[in-house]
Every structure is written in C-alpha cells, then in structure tokens.
C-alpha cells in the first residue's frame, strides 16, 4: 500500500519543529506501524537523509516505550493497544496519516517524535513504591488479600507508564497515570503504611512537573493501551482529600 505521512520533524530540544510530508510506498499490510516507519527510514538513510527518530523497545505492548500521536490520537484510534501493536491493515491504500509526538509541556520533544518522559520517573520516586525488607521471599498468601482488591490493584498495576493519557488530555493532566500508580499500592495491605505520604508526594511532584488539571473528559481512559479506568482518578481525589486533612491536623 502507498501512504502519505505528515510527520513532525524537529532537529533537537531547542529547535523549532514543523510537519514534513513523506511518501511511504510499497508498505505491506502485515507490517506493524513501527515496521512501516523502519521501511521509510531505510529509504531516507539510503538517500542520505536524517531518519525519523521515534521511541520503541519491546514492540509487543509491554514496555511503554513507544509513543506517537496518530491522526490526533495517542497510540491511534484503535482501543487497548500501543503503537507497536498497530498494524497497517487498519489503514487504507492512499491514506494520509498524521504522526506527531506526545504533546505536553512536561514531555519536552528531544528529537522528531521522541519525547522526554522522565517527569513520570520523578513522580514514581516521590511515592510510587513500598518500603519493605528485601530479604528472603515471604510465603505466598501470608497476607490475605480479598479477591476484589487484588483484581482492582492488578488492573491499576497494568499501567506501563507510556504517557498516552497525558498526550490525549487537552490539559496534559497526568491524573490517570498518578491515579493508577497510587491506587495500585493504596489498595493493597502492604501499601497502607505509606498511603498518605504517597498520595501527597506524588500529587505534589505531578504539579511541580507542570502537568495540567483533570477536567473529567476521560480522553485518557479512551486511549489507555491497558484500558485503565478513570475510577482511579476518583479514588486519587478521595485519597488526596483524606491525606490533606490528616496532614493539616497532625
């Protein structure tokens, strides 16, 4: 199939970027989206040009490295998948495809389609962990956890930290990510001890990184490759109020 790509090109973090039109010819329907970019890049390199830079690693939807906003939607309009799991058969011959980086002030563009998502790492470092003795492994089921809690903690833990939620949000809010990471631990007995400091720490770091505020439109939920529910945002709001009140009177 033959496609017209409109790709964001930006030489470096400080440079001005712009959309560039690139023709992609002879692409197999069975190729993945990233393989399509590989083919295009090979031709660009052969012609002595600068290949399109984009992030990727596992290419099987588990690492959270790949990004790309495709026709205005992070990871494309296909629900529940990452860009690396998208196949060219979802497009039609002759289509024009817009490919842009994940946009948010807290995700500065490094080059072309690569963005710096280390702000997420700093949010995790501000509370997205449990302090435990890491000696010998404890027996399985030594701490009984209700099935419902285990399931919902697991749903939150499915977050791969790709940042699509931020990229989809018109406010560049990171509430779905922070909500998922906080409720993953806050729902388990092991996470209770540090629950309040976790919520306060992560929300404060989120604000300090310059992410926006949720306006409850749930675009994040719609694009999340792991289909994490915006329920985690409601829980984060609830936990934040409780932690704030406790901190004020302590």
């Amino acid at each position: 199939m033959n496609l017209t790509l409109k790709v964001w090109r930006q030489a470096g973090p400080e440079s001005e970027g712009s959309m560039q039109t690139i023709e992609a010819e002879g692409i197999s329907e069975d190729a993945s989206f990233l393989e399509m970019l590989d083919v295009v890049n090979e031709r660009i390199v052969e012609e002595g040009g600068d290949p399109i830079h984009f992030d990727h690693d596992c290419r099987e939807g588990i690492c959270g490295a790949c990004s790309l906003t495709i026709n205005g939607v992070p990871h494309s309009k296909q629900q529940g998948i990452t860009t690396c799991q998208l196949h060219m058969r979802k497009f039609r011959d002759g289509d024009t495809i817009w490919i842009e980086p994940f946009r948010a002030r807290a995700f500065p563009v490094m080059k072309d389609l690569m963005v710096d998502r280390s702000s997420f790492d700093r949010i995790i470092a501000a509370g997205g962990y449990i302090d435990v003795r890491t000696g010998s492994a404890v027996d399985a089921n030594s701490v009984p956890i209700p099935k419902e809690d285990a399931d919902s903690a697991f749903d939150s833990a499915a977050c791969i930290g790709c940042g699509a939620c931020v990229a989809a949000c018109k406010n560049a809010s990171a509430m779905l990510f922070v909500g998922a990471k906080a409720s993953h631990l806050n729902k388990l007995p092991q996470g209770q001890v540090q629950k309040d400091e976790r919520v306060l720490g992560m929300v404060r770091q989120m604000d300090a990184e310059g992410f926006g505020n949720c306006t409850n439109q749930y675009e994040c939920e719609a694009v999340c490759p792991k289909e994490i529910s915006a329920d985690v945002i409601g829980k984060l709001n609830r936990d934040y109020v409780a932690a704030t009140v406790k901190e004020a009177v302590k």
Partner: protein
Amino acid sequence: MEIREKSGNYCLKFYLHGTRLASGFVRNIKQAMVSLIQPVISFWNSSIGKKILVALSGAFLVFFLIGHLAGNLLVFTGRGALNDYAQFLHEMGHGKGVWIFRIGLLVALVLHIAATVALTRQNRSAKGSQYAHNATMRASRSSKIMIWSGLIVLAFLVFHIFHFTIRVNPELADMADPAQPERHDVWGMVIKGFENPLVSLFYIVALTLLCSHLSHGIASMFQTLGLRTGKTKDASKIIGIALAVALWLGFISIPVAVMTGLLKADSSGYSDTKASVIEAQIAKQ
C-alpha cells in the same frame, strides 16, 4: 561592673520577663496562624485542591438554583403567592437572612470563578503546543466549552441582578402590589420584564448555556469529590443530565409562558405604580 548589673537587675528582669511573655504570646499566635493558613494555601496551590473548591462551590450554586427555581415557579400560581414568597425572603431573619444568602452566594461564585480561571490558564500552559491534527475520542461538546458557558452565564448574572434585584429600570422598580400597595409587585415585574423579547431571548440563551455547563459540571462534581466509582458512574452521568435539563425546562418555562401569552398580567393591567395607588387611597379618604 558587678554593681551595675545588680542595681538594674530587678527592673531589667521584670522588663525582660514581660517582653518574653509578650513575644511568646505573639509567637504562639503567629504559629497558630501559620498552621491554619499554611494548609489552606497549599490546598489552593495544588491541582486537586482547586478542583475540589470548584466542585464544592459549584454544588452550592446548584442547590441554590434548585431553591431559586422552586420559588420562581410560584409565578404560575398567581400574584399573591409569588409576592408573599418575595416578602418572606426579604423579611426572614429580620431582613438579615437574605443578606446572609447573598454573601454566601457571592463567596461561592467568586471562589468558583477564581479557581476555574486559574485552572484554565494552568491547563493551557501545561499543554504548550497543540496537535496539527486534533481529534477527540469521547469528550462531550459541553465539556469543551465550560469556561465560555461559565463566562456567558456570569455576564447574564450581572444583567439579571441589575434587572430584577437592583431594578435599575424605574418602570419595574416602581410597581406596587394592588392588594398590598406598600410591597413591591414582583409578579407584575416578572411578566412585564419578560414581555421584552430581547430580555426573554437573552434569558433563554443564557439558561441553555447553563444547562450545557451543568450537564458536564454535575457529573464532574461527583468525580472531583471522589464519589464516582464503577458502581456510581452511570448514575452520576444520568443525574447530571437530568438535573441540568430539569433546571433548564423549569427556568425557561417562565419567559416562554410570557412570550406565548400563557402568563398574562390580569384584567386590571399591570399593577399600578406605588405612587398612583397611594394617591388613589388618599383620594378615597
């Protein structure tokens, strides 16, 4: 050296003790203020904190709207009922009640606007650059125009207060209830006010935008306050839309009834002006 120290000792001790007590007291007050104000400031500075203030002030305004509508609908039961109600509002708590409500509403509105304007500005700067090709998956139209529907409702509120509360138009301000001429004829004023098609049109447009604002706002409120869960999410959406539509229908029913002639001033025409009623009474005596 020793003598000087000893002679001044008592005075100095007494003085120092006093200042220490006083400065200790001041320090305690300062500490108390800091421990009170600090959490409030950091709550305001946080993203979630401001959102919670928006939701609480929004909830307060919604409750007010429900009460306001219930009162307004008395217009359909006739002059006496609406004017009795208006008189009650102005006289409750020896005339202080209405001011307590007004101040409460003003505080809620100022908080709501200050927080939403601050949030909207932060959000625009957090996004930075926009996509060349923009698309949304499920955001409703109402949710995209919240700041604009809100600001137009604000413009309407200012007009509405000058129109029916302060009554800058002497024709509306001067109307007396024929049965009890010492009180204002609110019923006549409402009908006369809405007979102006421009006034009715602006009212209907503003309330339609308010309906849009609330169809997203009320459901949002549940989420912001942490009340939206897997179990309650459908209910919160339905309550939001149902309440928004019910308020819209209720409020616009009044100008619509006046414009279509369903609601008319009675055969004696408009209530007469206060002056003319009193003149007539004097003439009778």
